[in-house]
């Protein structure tokens, strides 16, 4: 049953992608070659091959070398760039999860902390923390704590952490509070300590809330890392590749797409990893039917 649903969803996804490809190529055929206006606004993009390369040229670009004369094919460059960013995102995500869960436990234990901190956490999700990216990255190479010199890549992960720990903290807190009153009473009747109640009741009860929060955290950490890379040109990551290739777009229009797809793959991989944890953590739970 589950296998059939997965097969159905995947095939729908493939059809969706195919439709997007079809629409792209269709626009190239019927669209204005030099862009055009719609209701007086220059909203129609240029349909020529420089601005909108054919899908096939994007895909075939992977097989050709990155730079003229070099031996390294672009797919390996994009792959290592995406992998670099993936590692950064994972570091950011784990840090974010640790801090987020820790904060949630703290807030759940001390109402004062919750009342003081929660409004800021909620606010932080509406505010472009991304703006801090260039500032945090500028610490790279300059900040010294004892003998430890701050590596530039850590800033990108830290930014990922910023974007990850807020949704994780909020989701975990909500989950910890979701334990039914009757269960809390039960634990009280067992004269259970706060720690025992936390680990035996509150955390397990929180898991269904933590899983979507972790997914948000995962995509947040990817966004934080990629933006950090883009705003500062961090070497080695996929963000920098996108910026570099974008600059060559007039001469080599398909190149930038290779990096863009790489970034998409990065996001999907990260989210796939977290989705795995979803399957593992929720495997013995009653299935919620979602229409």
């Amino acid at each position, binding site marked *: 049953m589950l296998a059939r649903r997965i097969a159905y969803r995947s095939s729908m996804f493939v059809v969706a992608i195919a439709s997007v490809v079809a629409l792209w190529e269709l626009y190239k055929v019927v669209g204005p070659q030099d862009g055009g206006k719609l209701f007086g606004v220059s909203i129609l993009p240029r349909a020529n091959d420089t601005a909108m390369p054919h899908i096939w040229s994007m895909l075939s670009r992977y097989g050709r070398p990155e730079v003229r004369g070099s031996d390294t094919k672009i797919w390996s460059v994009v792959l290592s760039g995406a992998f670099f960013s993936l590692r950064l995102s994972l570091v950011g995500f784990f840090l974010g999860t640790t801090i987020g869960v820790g904060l949630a436990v703290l807030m759940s234990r001390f109402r004062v902390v919750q009342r003081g901190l929660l409004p800021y956490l909620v606010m932080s999700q509406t505010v472009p923390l991304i703006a801090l990216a260039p500032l945090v990255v500028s610490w790279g190479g300059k900040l010294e704590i004892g003998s430890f010199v701050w590596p530039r890549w850590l800033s990108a992960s830290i930014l990922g952490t910023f974007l990850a720990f807020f949704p994780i903290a909020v989701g975990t807190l909500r989950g910890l509070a979701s334990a*039914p009153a*009757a*269960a809390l*009473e*039960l634990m*009280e*009747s*067992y*004269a*259970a300590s706060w720690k*025992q109640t936390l680990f*035996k*009741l509150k955390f*397990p009860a929180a*898991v269904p809330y933590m899983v979507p929060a972790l997914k948000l955290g995962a995509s947040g950490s990817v966004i934080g890392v990629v933006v950090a890379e883009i705003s500062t040109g961090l070497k080695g990551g996929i963000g920098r590749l996108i910026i570099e290739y974008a600059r060559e777009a007039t001469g080599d229009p398909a190149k930038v797409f290779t990096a863009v797809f790489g970034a998409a793959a990065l996001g999907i991989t990260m989210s796939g990893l977290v989705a795995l944890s979803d399957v593992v953590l929720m495997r*013995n*739970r*009653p299935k919620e039917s979602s229409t």
Partner: protein
Amino acid sequence: MSALEVLAASKIFNQGTTKQVDALVDVSLTVQPGEFVSLIGPSGCGKSTLLRLIANLLEPTTGSVSVNKKTAAQARLDQDYGMAFQQAGLFDWRTVSKNIELPLELKGWEKSRRETRAKEMLELVKLPEFADLYPWQLSGGMQQRIAIARALASHPPLLLMDEPFGALDEMTREYMQGELLRICGETSTTVVFVTHSIPEAVYLSNRVVVMSPRPGRITKVIEVGLGATRNEDTRAAEGFFKGITAVREALRGTHAEHAAANAVRGVEDR
């Protein structure tokens, strides 16, 4: 030598403010070991509050509660009672046997001892095949049996139950009543049982404590007098109907005076 003694206990919420609620006023009750006592009464009569006073989940405003010759607080720390609620309250993420093991884990029992006891309890409630299943895979009645198994896992002398069969259909309910009596008989447990149902109270108990609200208090204690055993025929016996009538009248008595009082104030009686 009583199993449980409540002496002139009161529980008043929001004392001194305009929102004051006299949940219990001057309640006294003594229960002998092995007795089955039901608490019955309309909403707001304080039966659940009384149960929670005994369980030390609430502190009495005045008066005292002693369980097993200790204070209620000490009894809770020593885990001298087990509790079962209307919602079975099993943990979805634990298997049935792990659910039963919960109070034993908290007491620090080692693994093999816990597992043996859990198996024992499953045999007692006649659900040994379900040990490795999850609660949501079981019916409501089965979940309640597991909750009872959990409540009795550490073999406490006292069992406190707050309308545990309230969410079950009538047939399952009657079956569960029989099972409960069998289990408590086999373990010689003292039981304090809160219920809304008159037949249930009469079928299960040695004594039925009738309570009334505003303020919450005990109005009458009825000796059921059906003897020590119950079976299929009990529900058709004359003594059973006599008991039900006695309880009903006691309830109506409180209900009537309550209605009369309200009628004077011009409030509609429902």
